[in-house]
């Protein structure tokens, strides 16, 4: 345990000093993306990994987070930080509306329902004129400041904001893992009937986990909108985003604290590098690679890559 804690602090220290050694925009951008996907996958892992409820619809919260803050900024001039909080509230409402009825469903039915919800959200935003429909929203270029959540000269502030979010997400997952909720979720995953028979309120546990998942995904949505300064339905509600979160959690290790982190550090560089090196010629090869990885891990090593390190004593 102590060894694990030491490793963790070394890891965080490396992340803090990373930008001083890598001054080019690309490595910084890569790390921001890795951490952003790690945050969302940690969120996915709480409901999907610990609780065993596979959702293919978490991009809905990413989209809601991105759209809420962007709409509040463009229509009401509110700071994106307020927008981020408002996005969390909207995502919580959505999580509740979706989760309350859907958590009655088991396994496959739930997974398909989440695809349906993701696609419905995408479809609604594609036709909703007030939020720009298929065109999306271009965010105004404001003077750079922390309040405006815009930095044009360098990606450095984005990097540290994301790092803070990353540590926050790990903290949330750590608390969940140690809490009663974490034990209940694992019990629900392994044996729902058994959990119910000892008095676990299954639906409430799943809802709590789903809400945490929604919040972690939603803040990333706001961050992404401010980082890219342009959003449209496919880039925020796209099914591939939801799928990426599953793949990352799966290859890292379902229901493991650092599973999504490891998964993200393996998967996102793979994505970015195949994009850079294969370009448009290799269109599709990247998808084939991930899917083979996904299938291989699911069949051969369902406990994920983090189990490779487990012998070290964690």
């Amino acid at each position, binding site marked *: 345990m102590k060894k694990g804690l030491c490793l963790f602090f070394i890891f965080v220290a490396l992340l803090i000093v990373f930008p001083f050694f890598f001054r080019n925009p690309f490595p910084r951008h890569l790390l921001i993306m890795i951490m952003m996907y790690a945050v969302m996958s940690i969120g996915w892992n709480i409901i999907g990994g610990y609780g065993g409820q596979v959702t293919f619809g978490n991009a809905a919260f990413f989209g809601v987070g991105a759209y809420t803050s962007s709409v509040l900024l463009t229509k009401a001039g509110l700071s994106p930080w307020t927008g981020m909080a408002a996005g969390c509230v909207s995502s919580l409402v959505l999580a509740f509306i979706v989760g309350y009825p859907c958590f009655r469903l088991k396994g496959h039915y739930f997974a398909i329902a989440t695809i349906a919800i993701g696609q419905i959200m995408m479809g609604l935003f594609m036709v909703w004129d007030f939020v720009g429909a298929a065109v999306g929203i271009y965010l105004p270029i404001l003077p750079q400041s922390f309040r405006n959540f815009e930095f044009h000269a360098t990606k450095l502030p984005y990097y540290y904001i994301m790092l803070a979010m990353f540590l926050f997400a790990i903290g949330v997952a750590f608390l969940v893992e140690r809490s009663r909720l974490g034990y209940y979720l694992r019990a629900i995953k392994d044996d729902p009937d058994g959990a119910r028979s000892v008095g676990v309120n299954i639906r409430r546990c799943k809802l709590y986990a789903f809400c945490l998942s929604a919040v972690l995904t939603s803040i990333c949505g706001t961050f992404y909108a401010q980082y890219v300064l342009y959003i449209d339905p496919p880039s925020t509600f796209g099914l591939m985003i939801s799928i990426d979160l*599953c793949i990352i959690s799966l290859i890292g290790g379902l229901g493991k604290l650092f599973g999504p982190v490891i998964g993200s550090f393996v998967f996102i560089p793979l994505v970015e590098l195949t994009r850079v090196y294969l370009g448009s010629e290799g269109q*599709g*090869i*990247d998808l084939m690679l991930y*899917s*083979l990885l996904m299938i291989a891990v699911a069949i051969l090593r369902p406990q994920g890559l983090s189990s490779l390190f487990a012998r070290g004593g964690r």
Partner: protein
Amino acid sequence: MEIFAQTVVSGLLIGFLYALIAVGLTMIFGVMDIVNFAHGDYLMLAMYFAYWSYALLGIDPLYSLPAVTLALFVLGTATYYLLIKRIINAPMLSQIFVTFGLLIFLRGLAQFLWKADYRAVPHCLLSGSLHVSGVYIGLPQLVAAAGAVVCNGLIFLFLKKTRAGTALEAVAEDKEAARLMGINSDRMFALAWGIGIASVGVAGALLASFYYVFPEVGGNFGLIAFVVVALGGFGSVVGAFIAGIVVGLVEVMSGYLLAPSIKFIVVLGLYLAIVVARPQGLLGKA
């Protein structure tokens, strides 16, 4: 009134095809409790096979239908022996990830081999439309619907009237008991995958006469197949047939009454309403 008749006819025609696509999905689920997330993407492969046999060999989709069906049957059984066999007793999470991985793989393969272009067979044997008392009926759509009905009927007869069919139903009912009766459940699973995917082959070849082919074409059809199967009850062949028609009608009606751009939202909303209110579907066992 004529417009109403027109939407009903269009809804029925597409509904029969939905039913055919969903039958394979529901059969695989019924026999082995595995949801094939890649179902729509086998449809995409079938459409590409039909397209290329036209583009390269000049064979009309209607004539290549038997070959496409056979190819998909072989693909289905191969998928079973190579992949699905390994996860029959795996946790459900692994099953979901494997068939979902298959979905991404097939889409990636299609993008890589055939690029993201939209393709269509330009001069089909079947073209034009009939005009019956104010209602237009596209000839390829009509033939596709008729083919779908015939194929659905054949699958139903196969399950009820042949030895292999009853053996398949026996395995679906109780794997252990079926084994005691001397039924090789492994071969039955392979057969379910073969027929389930072959039925998508028929649908794909029929669709190729009048629908664009592109790597993501399976996405929407796959989702609709899930809606149909959920509505009809997982594992119910008759349920899938009825539900296919219902979904076809709902889609076309909502496109006409509300707006074409949201007809898909309505169909997916229908799925949510059904699974929440009646998880076993219309004809499914509780």
